[in-house]
């Protein structure tokens, strides 16, 4: 008996009934609902909604909110799809349009801020807190996402993790807007994007390291 035939006998001998995974969209929706429930509770309990309501009158904030939320949701949905062997790799492009919207909206707001305040707009100010916030929210979300995604035994764990990381960081940047009592400065934008980038890279590297072991 060849070693391949022996392997088949071994695998067949230990094959038990398995529970099929639900479709990726359903799984993504369930995960996002759970995160939404926690986020809504946190926002209601800890954020100053009157400040948010005042800032919300600026249509630019709406653009930013939509940009971050959609980047987050698209990243998560794409990660759930890419974790399966037979889904199109094009899912990886899903977060690109909302990401561009987000960067564009923030960039415009920064530009305006810079015109109004001049070089003062370049101050780091509260940005460091935003960075810590994005990392702090992304870490537990990323861990929760990892536990769900690994069930699919992703064939390309690195791409899956990168998209998951970008999604998680996008969601963190969205929630951050509720705890952000001031308009975004140029530095803020850089820091927010750096936060998203760091989370994405960290997910990517951890997946690559785990994959090698």
């Amino acid at each position, binding site marked *: 008996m060849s070693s*391949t035939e022996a392997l*088949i006998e071994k695998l*067949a001998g230990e*094959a038990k009934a398995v529970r099929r995974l639900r*479709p990726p969209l359903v799984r993504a929706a369930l995960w996002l609902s759970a995160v939404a429930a926690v986020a809504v509770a946190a926002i209601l309990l800890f954020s100053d909604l009157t400040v948010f309501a005042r800032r919300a009158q600026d249509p630019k904030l709406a653009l930013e909110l939509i940009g971050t939320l959609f980047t987050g949701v698209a990243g998560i949905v794409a990660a759930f799809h890419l974790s*399966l*062997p037979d889904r199109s790799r094009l899912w990886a492009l899903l977060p690109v349009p909302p990401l561009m919207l987000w960067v564009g909206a923030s960039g415009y707001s920064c530009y305006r801020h810079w015109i109004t305040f001049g070089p003062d707009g370049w101050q780091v100010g509260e940005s460091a807190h935003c960075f810590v916030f994005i990392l702090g929210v992304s870490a537990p979300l990323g861990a929760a996402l990892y536990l769900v995604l690994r069930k699919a*035994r992703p*064939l390309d764990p690195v791409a899956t993790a990168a998209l998951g990381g970008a999604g998680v960081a996008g969601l963190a940047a969205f929630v951050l807007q509720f705890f952000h009592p001031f308009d975004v400065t140029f530095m803020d934008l850089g820091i927010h994007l750096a936060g998203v980038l760091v989370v994405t890279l960290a997910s990517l590297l951890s997946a690559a390291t785990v994959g090698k072991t």
Partner: protein
Amino acid sequence: MSQQISEETEWAVLMIRAQDGDQGAYRRLLKEIVPYLRVVIRSYHRDGGDVEDAVQEALLTIHSARHTYDPARPFKPWLAAIGRRRAIDRLRRLKRTRGRETLLEPEHETNLADETNMETGYGDERALHAAVEQLPPGQRQAVTLLKLQEKSLKEAALESGMSVASLKVAMHRAMISLRKILSAGENRP
């Protein structure tokens, strides 16, 4: 075309039964998909050993990811994606290994001639046996028992009826005679 469709449907049905715990269906499925996996993997690997290793890695992946197959979708894209991925992974691993390791080439050998890299060769053995045949009976017996049959001095003494001391002397003389015979053979044109 219709055969392809029926094969794919059959595999999908077998996989659904395998997901439900039917080991017979699973065994049949794995056996039937191996040739298909080989075809997929052969477009990445030429070496037969590499193809078979990648096939086995793909089978292991199929086993651990069999719950991810969605019965509502076609089976072959799922299967081929796993085969391709394992073939590519193996290719990458081979590339990494080759970057660190150097294969032994002919120039790494101490001597290029085949027989110098073999412990024994047919030519050597025949010449040696012929040389042993030319020895006087006592010396020949000593060589046969002590060297060719690898017996101890005590055993050889018991079997030949010679004393240990005379066996040693015979062996010593035999070695000198053999050296002479063999070196004479080598010098012959």
